[in-house]
Each structure stands twice: as C-alpha cells, then as structure tokens.
C-alpha cells in the first residue's frame, strides 16, 4: 500500500499545475465571456505533452499510466474546466481507438495526433438518446467495402474543429446493444454537416455542436473491432473516461476551495476574518474532506485500471461522488464569497456554472448510481 506519487508523477503534476496557473487561469474568464476556444493555449498544452495522454508510447504518445492521466486532468481542470473539456474530449474520442482499434488503425489515427495538434470528437449522444446509449438511432450500414452512416448527433465537444470523429451507431436498431458499432470518420468526408455552436451555461469556451451525418461513406477499414462490436468497446472506454471526468471535478473543486480559503482569511465581518467564524470553518472542512475522498476514489479507479483489475464500480463511485462534491463545493464557494461570489468579476461564479456539467456528461450522477447498484446486485 503506497499513497505516494512517484518522482516522475510529482514532476508531471508540477508541470501541469504550472501550466494551469500561468497559462489557463489568467485567460479562463476572458474565453468564458467570449465563448471561444483558446487555440493558442490548447496548442501549447499539446506541445508540452499534456494532450492525448491515452496514446501508448509505441504510437508516439508518452506512455502514461491511467493514474498519470488523472494527475494531468485534475491540474488542467484546476486551470479552467472549460478548456480542460476541449483537451479531455480528445482522449474520450481516442480511447475507443486505443481500446478497440487494430495496429493499423492505431498507426493511421493515433500517431498523426502526436505529430501535430489536432482535435478529435466523440460522437455518441443523439437528440433523443443520452443516458439510453443502447437505443441510439444513427445507422451504420454495410455497402460493399464501405459502411454508410446516417443520423444526428448532439452535444458533440470539439465538433467545429475536429479532424477525427469517433462515432457510435447501430447496424440495426432492433439489435439494441448488440448492434452498436464504432467507426472513425475523418474531417472532410462528404455528408458531414456541422451545426451551430451551442450557447451553454458553463464550459463556454469549449466548442459544442450538433452534427448531421447524411449518407457519410467510409471504408470498412475504419470500423473499430468489427461490425456489432461497439458496445464492449464503449463500456471499456467508460472505465477510463469516467475516472478522468471525475479527476476534472476534483481539479475544479480544488480551485474553488483554494479561492475560498484565501478569501475567508481576507474578508472581515464582525471585526474578524470570516475564517474565524465556525459556520465558514464547517463549510471549508466539508469541502476539504470531499476533495480528498474524491481524489482517492479517482486514483483508486485509475490504479485498478493500470493493474488490469475490474474498475467499473469504482469508476462510477469516482464519477458520481466527485461530480456531486464539485457541485456542492463550488456552490459553497459562492456562498463564502457572498455577493461577490455571485458576480462574474470573481472566479467562483464560473466554477459553479462549470461544475454542473460534470454531473451530466459522461453518464449523469443518476446513471452512475444505477451502474453501482447493478454491480452490487449482480454479485450478491
């Protein structure tokens, strides 16, 4: 049993935190207001190796463990949860290729991502299907050496700038889970229609759009793991991506917490800093406990993954607990700041808006509880 980071992990954390504090935090407010992607910041993050952490070393990546990628994600989300979403979305899109792709597909799709900064988009959710992923309507039909894709996808992160779309569809809606198929579509393929940018509550700099796939034809060589093999790839992807999203919740919560501690020592009411009031102390203590517990769940879920052990249940613990805690912590941070907290001039208002999304995407907090209960009852 060892809770220590390795010396390399400490350095990775230092670099990622330095980048978050020097490059991301000073611009977080500006890009939130402009609702624009900070392409220069994202490209700089990529050049330092902070993007695409899931790519194995043999395909040009840094060969990070899952725990390493959690450390990086937490730090980047500390800097700005919205920018981190744009960065993390690359991993969400590339993980199905890492997990279900052939050697040829990995060379063709992953390696170019390590040579130049490119964005990738993960296309699962549809206008009518979010939590019920098995019920997706987008069709993938065989046609000679190709497959033809038809359907609508919704809330797709990085949609407007992606070079690569990793899409889940079905060969036959009647097959439900058994028809799910994952396919890689390259930018510029005929029939991709990118929708307008969504006007969101938080994560405003990240580029979120609907996409229509209208008779989009790609070679069968782009199908990951074969037709009808998509569901197991999707489930394995979630085992990695859910802890990662949970790590981003820890980063956002830690940032809200650090702001709160600093402010509580500065703000004077009743002739003493509010940090000396017990009501504030209780809130700060609750925040600290929840952050530490969330982080430990994230690291354990990732550690299980690195050791080849089943982690589905822990991944859902981490995702639900960290996301719900982040929302509570960000809300309390606004409370500690009082009227100033409700103003956009102070940083905690943005964190509260950003936190809400973490309870929704990559499986809502409610879905995580269903997954957990299913795991418990299926084994008892």
């Amino acid at each position, binding site marked *: 049993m060892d809770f220590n980071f390795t*010396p390399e992990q400490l*350095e990775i954390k230092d670099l990622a935190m330095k980048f978050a504090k020097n490059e991301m935090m000073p611009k977080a407010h500006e890009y939130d207001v402009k609702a624009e992607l900070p392409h220069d910041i994202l490209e700089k993050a990529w*050049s330092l*190796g902070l993007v695409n952490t899931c790519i194995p070393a043999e395909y040009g990546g*840094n060969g990070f463990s899952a725990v390493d990628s959690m450390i990086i994600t937490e730090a980047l989300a500390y800097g700005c949860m919205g920018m981190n979403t744009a960065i993390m979305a690359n991993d969400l899109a590339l993980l199905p290729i890492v997990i279900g792709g052939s050697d040829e597909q990995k060379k063709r799709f992953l390696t170019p991502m390590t040579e130049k900064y490119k964005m990738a988009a993960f296309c699962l959710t549809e206008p009518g299907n979010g939590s019920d992923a098995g019920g997706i309507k987008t069709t993938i039909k065989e046609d000679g050496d190709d497959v033809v894709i038809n359907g609508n996808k919704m809330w797709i992160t990085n949609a407007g700038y992606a070079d690569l779309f990793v899409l889940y569809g079905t060969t036959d809606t009647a097959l439900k889970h058994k028809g799910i198929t994952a396919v890689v579509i390259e930018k510029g393929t005929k029939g991709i229609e990118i929708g307008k940018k969504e006007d969101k509550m938080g994560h405003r700099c990240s580029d979120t759009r609907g996409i229509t796939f209208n008779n989009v034809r790609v070679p069968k060589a782009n199908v990951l793991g074969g037709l009808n093999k998509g569901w197991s790839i999707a489930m394995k992807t979630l085992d990695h991506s859910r802890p990662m999203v949970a790590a981003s919740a820890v980063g956002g919560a830690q940032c809200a917490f650090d702001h709160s501690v600093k402010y509580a020592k500065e703000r004077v009411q009743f002739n003493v800093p509010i940090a000396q009031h017990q009501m504030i102390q209780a809130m700060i203590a609750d925040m600290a406990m929840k952050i530490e517990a969330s982080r430990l769940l994230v690291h354990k879920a990732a550690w299980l993954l690195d050791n080849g052990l089943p982690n589905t249940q822990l991944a859902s613990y981490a995702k639900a607990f960290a996301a719900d805690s982040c929302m509570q912590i960000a809300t309390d941070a606004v409370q500690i700041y009082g009227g100033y907290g409700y103003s956009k001039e102070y940083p905690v208002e943005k964190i509260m808006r950003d936190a809400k999304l973490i309870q929704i995407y990559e499986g809502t907090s409610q879905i995580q509880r269903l997954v957990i209960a299913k795991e418990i009852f299926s084994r008892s």
Partner: protein
Amino acid sequence: MNIFVCVKQVPDTETKIVPSADGSFIETSSIKWIMNPYDEFAVEQALLIQAANAGSTVTVVRVGSTKDTEALRTAMAMGADDAFLVEANDNLDSYSIAKALKGAIEKSGKKPDIILTGKQAIDDDCLQVPQILATMMEIPSVSVVVGYEGSATDITVKREIEGGAIEVYGVKLPAIIACNKGINTPRYASLPGIMKAKKKPLTTLSLADAGVSEADRRVKYSNFQLPPEKPPGKKFDATDAAKMGGVVKEVVGLLRTEAKVI
C-alpha cells in the same frame, strides 16, 4: 562550448516560512522546493547558447541537501545534458557555496566557456555567489543581465541599473553571467522532457569532494526570525472639502515625525 548553469533550490513562493526551533535555519520538512525563478532564466539562456553553438553541452550544478533534487531534474527536463549535486546543508553561506560550485565545476573535468546563474536567490537574497565565484575562478562577471548576444568567444550583454537605464558590456569568455527577468522567456519542462531526464546522468559529490570544509564558512546563521508584523495603515477622511486643509497638514506632519520620509 562547455556551458555551466548554477541553480539553487528555494522554497515555493507560496510557502509559509517557519524558523526552526534552534534558529539556525527554517523548518524544511513541509516545504515544497522549486528552482529559484531567476535560475530558470539562466537555464533557458544556456539552452539558447547551446542551440546557437553546435556541439555544446549544458551542465547544471547545485549545492544543497539531497532530500529533493527537483531543481536539477527540472533543468534536465528543460534540456540540460547532465547535472552535479554537491550534498550540503541548505543553510550554507555564500562563500562556501561559491567554493563548492567551483569544486564541482572542476570535478566535471570540463573547462567552462561560460557560467550562467540567476541574479539572486529569492530565499536569502544574498546576491553575491556569482561575484564570489568569479573572483575565485579569476574570470569576469556581469550581473542583472537582461540582454545577451554574441559568439562562442565574445559576447555583448546588457545590464539593468537603477532608474531603468541600461549598461552595455563587451565581455571575453569565459565569464559568469547572472541573469535577470527579461533576458528570455524560460521554456516549460515538457512531459517527454521529464521522461527523458530520468536517463540523464546526475553525479553526487560531498562537500569534501568539492574541496570545502567547515573552516570555509564565513557566516553562521544563529537566529532566524520572522519579520515583525506590519502595523495597519492609517486612513484619513478628506471627502469633505472643509476638512481637506487639516488632513493635508496632519499627513505632512506624520510623514515628518512618524514615517520620517520628508
């Protein structure tokens, strides 16, 4: 060129400093150590010089405790080729540190063409190691350098002096250049750089190996204390036009008698 960089490890600027119980130093058990920020400019300048002079090597040297080799690893992750650590207490005085640095540079077996340092360390703010080292090595030194250009043998450096004016020096190498903010923008140690740095050689020497003994100590710290807390500022109410004359008189009076600045 044989390029050397001397770096120091200092407490993170956000650290809450606590003097040790015996007053000989500060409590170091819970400190997060970072590379002295001015030394980052020196490392960056070394890497820029290396890039401009093919076949050059960058060697980083540090004197301090081994608990944590953060600064040396960071420098190698940024791109330096190898590192020397002289193991010593962190509360050594400037003379001993300069002598240990000289010893380590000599132990490397390479004759330095240039030695870069930060202009000062942000922990003890002594501002004297580069100059003492230059005297010991009998080579020129320029400090507070904000501009650098030149060849492998002759350089022109700009030095910031009081009032924001700039002095320009032509210097024959070898020399010691102490860097200030503005000379360059230090790069980040990239993640691939961090991974590569693990395989780069880090040689550890004792103070004796570097030719330093307790007899070299010129300054001994005995009573570290926190500075006294600043008294709160005074507020004057001059919003009312009728009161203004009185307030001005009062402020001028206090500046004379209390603050003694006029």
